[in-house]
Structures are given as structure tokens and as C-alpha cells.
């Protein structure tokens, strides 16, 4: 996956966002200007690794390019995860069954394989996703 999206923390990998020094607004991925107060003093900040599911949906057919996921379509879900005090981040979800997803459920960040592995590759291509967290 795009390495600029991630950073390492003591708890494990986290998404890397920006925080506005002037108004505290967060963005993901990082950006140089603040869409909230129009300031331009943005600092890199690791985003929370846990949050709650804010909304979700499923992907019933294989998207057209530029999608590069597995050739044989495996339905997947996406959602917005509320990271407290920061933002809502859009992400794939590891659970693809809408009946097992609910708004408000606790989730945590995971790195998951999502693409067929080319013969010459070292290993599976990963992306970020959120998985239901067990209390």
C-alpha cells in the first residue's frame, strides 16, 4: 500500500493524518492547507487506531479500473469510522455481510491483503481496513 498513508506507533501501525495548528481540524491523508480555517500550518499526526462505525455499505460488483483488487470479485464492505476527536475516515471493512455490521459498533485498524499476488512479488499487497474490536 501507499507508505505515505501509514506511520508506526507504540501500539502498532496507524494512519497518518494532518492536524491544523490553528484550529485543531484533522485531515486524512496529510495535506498542506486547512479546509476548515484556511490556515496553512499543518502538522503530521498519527490517527487513532480505534473508533466506532459511523456508516457503511457494501460493494456488490467488482469495480472498474483503477480498482486493482482480486480478479475474482469478493464482495467487500466500506464505511466511515469515527476516530474520536479527530475525523471520520473512509475505509474498507473486514466484515462484508451487512447484517453483521451496525452503526456505532467498535472497530480497530488492521492491515489486510486485498490484491492477487503477482508471481514476482514478495508477498500479498495490503491495504488498511477496520475490523470489529473485541472488548
Amino acid at each position, binding site marked *: 500500500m501507499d507508505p505515505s498513508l501509514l506511520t508506526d506507533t507504540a501500539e502498532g501501525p496507524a494512519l497518518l493524518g494532518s492536524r491544523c495548528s490553528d484550529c485543531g481540524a484533522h485531515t486524512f*491523508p496529510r495535506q498542506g492547507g486547512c479546509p476548515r480555517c484556511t490556515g496553512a500550518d499543518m502538522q503530521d499526526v498519527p490517527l487513532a487506531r480505534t473508533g466506532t462505525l459511523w456508516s457503511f455499505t457494501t*460493494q456488490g460488483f467488482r469495480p472498474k479500473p483503477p480498482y486493482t*483488487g482480486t480478479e475474482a470479485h469478493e464482495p467487500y464492505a466500506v464505511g466511515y469510522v469515527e476516530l474520536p476527536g479527530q475525523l471520520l*475516515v473512509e475505509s474498507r471493512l473486514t466484515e462484508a455481510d451487512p447484517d453483521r455490521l451496525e452503526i456505532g459498533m467498535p472497530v480497530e485498524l488492521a492491515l489486510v491483503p486485498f490484491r492477487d499476488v503477482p508471481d514476482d512479488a514478495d508477498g500479498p499487497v495490503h491495504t488498511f481496513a477496520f475490523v470489529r474490536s473485541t472488548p
Partner: protein
Amino acid sequence: MSGVAIVGIGMHRFGRTEGVSGRAQAVHAARRALDDAGLRFSDMQFGFGGSHSAGDADTLVSELGLTGLPFINVANGCATGGSALIAADAAIRSGTHDLGIVIGFDKHPRGAFDTDPADHGIGSWYGETGMMVTTQFFGMKIQRYLHDHGIKPDVLAEVSAKAFRNGARNPMAWRRKEMAAAEIAAAPMISHPLTQYMYCSPAEGAVALVLCRAEDAHHYTDRPVYLAAATFRSRRYGSFEVFSPWLALDRADSPTVEASAAAFAAAGIAPSAVDVAQIQDTESGAELMHMAETGLCAHGEQEELILSGATAIEGRLPINTDGGCLANGEPIGASGLRQVHENVLQLRGDAGEHQVPGNPQVGFTHVYGAPGISACTVLTREEPS
């Protein structure tokens, strides 16, 4: 300041017309609108128009006539037609011109719209990992909306069923076959909770309108329809829009809310006075959300209105009487003007089998689209004071 009237309307049938280019459909619509007003292209003092993927509107003059008029291309996604109309409105209202034409047309290939994250300032990872898909946005938006307002998802199939019922009554519609709500609900799931028949499809078509100073309207028609307001707004920080890798914790209203309120304020007409409304129904959840965002009803009130038939042609708040995007498809450049065309038919009493009964006096139109824009009009039978 002059008021503005619509004195000619023309349309090329929406749907798929093999072998006829988008430009040819635009020329067809323009000629119909000119005929409707009893005018020639040489009478036009200006043109505004656009398409998303069928060519530049200003090149239509090679077919319509090289008269030297200022013809300005408009490119504003789903609001292309609305933006062309706003430009025409300003040109006439300001006194710059007396009479002119707006044209919206399009012809899209089958299947979903192509999207390149770079066009939206987003990294390639967003498309590669399967999140740059418009249908997902609509699924997530309505999922949250239903949750927030305690609305059962069953109503979504009813919205589509109404669209196809209205389409069956409209000879210009693309999809003219009724479909039961149960069949719509049981269709393949595209993006939960929205099934295949709850989404509109990219399509083809063209609409043209001839507009003039309100005081001149009776020179061209005995049944002018007045453009009481035409407005456009873009998104604020915190609104929930398509292709957003992140959203702010602060929630803001959709641009629909501001564009609608501005239109009603400019017209001096309350949403409760609307007799017929055409609102953006890219998918059935959009119609439901937009009913409240435009001020036509309160949030949470939609379920009862839809299930009771209030939004049907014979109901007290008829919505998308021509079948909307769901039954007509969405040629992006033409869609907003289709709504105005339909309301002019309704206010003239010319809508035939899909005519709203009771001599409607006030029409409202609303488009909404990427990247968070909305354009609205208020149309009236009586000349605004």
C-alpha cells in the same frame, strides 16, 4: 431589473439513441425549443450550454447557424444545465440581453462513470483499493440518514416503484415499464441498502430552453412560465460528499439546503406553496433525503408521505412526475434542464398522461451532484411581482 420567462422548450428523448450523437440530440432539442417559441436561431442574442462527455456546446453553432452570437460553454457536472440557466437568467435580468437559448446535452457510454482520483486531488490508492465508487457514497449516505431519522429501508423500493409508474405515463421517458416494489427490493444489491433498480443509469438526451424578458413573453407564447429564481451553491466544511477519504467531525448541511433556501427566498415563495417538484434522484435514497433538505417536508416525514402516495402525480406533493433520473437516466449535461422542461409542461398543463391535476401554479427543481454542488429553480405560472 427585468423578470425572466421561459417561452420555448425542446427535448431529445432520453435513454439510448444508437447512431445519433449527443450534439445531434442537442440540435434537435434546440430546434424544438425555437419552434415552440416561434423563433429562429438568428433571433437568439446569446447561448449558454454544456455537456459532460458529448462535446462543446459552442460548436453547435456550425449546425444551428453562424450568427456571431456569444455562445458560452458551461461545465459544472450535474449542475451544468442549472448553471447555464443561471447565466441566462443573469444576462436577461441585468438587461444585457433580451432573448437567448440554453442547451444541455450528453451521451455517456454504458456502465458507471469513469473516475480518476487525480482529477479530484486524491491519491491513486483510493481508486486501487476500491473506494472511488459513487454507488458506495450513496449507500453510506442513506444508511446513515435512515439511522438518524428512524426510517425503515423498505421505503427505498417504493420511491423507485413510483418513478417507474410515472415513467410509464411519460412518452419521453426511457424506462416505461412499471415494476413492483417487491421486485425492486429483491434485485441484486449494488451498495447496501440500495439495489440495482434503486440507481439511475448514465444515459443520453438533450434539452433546450428559450428565455426572454418577462415583459416580452407574450410576443412568443400565450403560456409563458416565469423563472422566479435560479440559484447555485457549493459545499461547506463538514458536508458529506462523494469521493471523501475523510469527513470532518463537524457536520454541515448539504449544499442543497442553502441552494433551496436561497431559491425560495429570491422567489418570495414558501416551499409549502410548491405544486410540483422535480428533485435529484440519482438513487431512491437521494429523493428521500432531498425531499427534506429542499424544505418540501420535515426530516423523518418522508416515509409517511411516500407510503401514503402524497408524492405520486395525484398526491398533494407530486415529485419527479416525469419519472426523474430513475426512469429517464442521467445525461449529466441535460438532467437539470429536463427537470425545468417537465415543470414548464406541468405549469402549461401540457403534460398529458402524467399531468398533475388541479392547474399547478408553482414548480420547483433541484439538482445535486459531485463535488458537492446544488442548483435549484422556482418556476411560476403567474408573473412574479
